[in-house]
């Protein structure tokens, strides 16, 4: 039981770190895009939307809002 909880915790930590790596890569990408291609605003907006999606889904846990009482963590 304890080992199971420990594994779940490690998995949750790993998921949080994966999101950070993804967000860091997207941020570097948008910085380079903004520096090189000055007129390209649409891809920058796209990157922002993608970053916001990952934060809202994985860090803000939006799906929890739609979970029933029995499914609460």
């Amino acid at each position, binding site marked *: 039981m304890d080992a199971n909880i420990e594994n779940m915790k490690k998995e949750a930590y790993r998921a949080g770190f994966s999101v950070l790596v993804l967000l860091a890569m997207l941020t570097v990408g948008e*910085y380079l895009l903004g520096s090189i291609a*000055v007129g390209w605003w649409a891809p920058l907006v796209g990157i922002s939307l993608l970053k916001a999606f990952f934060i809202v889904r994985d*860090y803000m846990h939006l799906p929890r809002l739609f979970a029933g009482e029995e499914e609460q963590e």
Partner: protein
Amino acid sequence: MSTQTSTLSDYRRRLTTNRLGLWLFIISDAFLFGGLLVSRFYLLGTAIRPEASQIVGLVVTSILLLSSFFMNRAETAIAHGDRKTFQFSLLVTLLLGVLFLAGVVGVEWRIAPFGPSDGAAASLFYTMTGFHAFHVLSGVLFLAIVWRNGRKGLYSPEKHWAVEAAAVYWHFVDVVWVFFYPALYLIGTP
């Protein structure tokens, strides 16, 4: 045993309502930032941006993203009963929030080659970063209260709504910056 089960059941019922209330607040607050973002593109278009420091912009953005990671780590830790990691990660989040404020208000505002009254781009820059900084400040205060309560042992894996609320608010502030960063620093030329 049945009293304990009933209490937990009541708590979970309240949690559903609390989450809905928090998200309604977040959505209403998002309209404020949405309005500022629309103003920026309406007044400046996509060809002009404020003459802000690119390096400071990238650094403060990285700091805020890192703080979101530590906030998520703190929430995960308390949900799994890991109090030590919870307290440590929350403190790191708080300090990164203070560092972000110092970067924007203490450095960026100081080195910017324009004042708030030097045209539309300058006014927008100070209004947008100022509104956002106030939200970061209130988030830092929220985190400080949660950290203090955490030291008193007020949260458990079953009951930690305040931690969840602080986390959702903090990540929301991060999401706002995700849109403000390209709008103020990357889209257009000074």
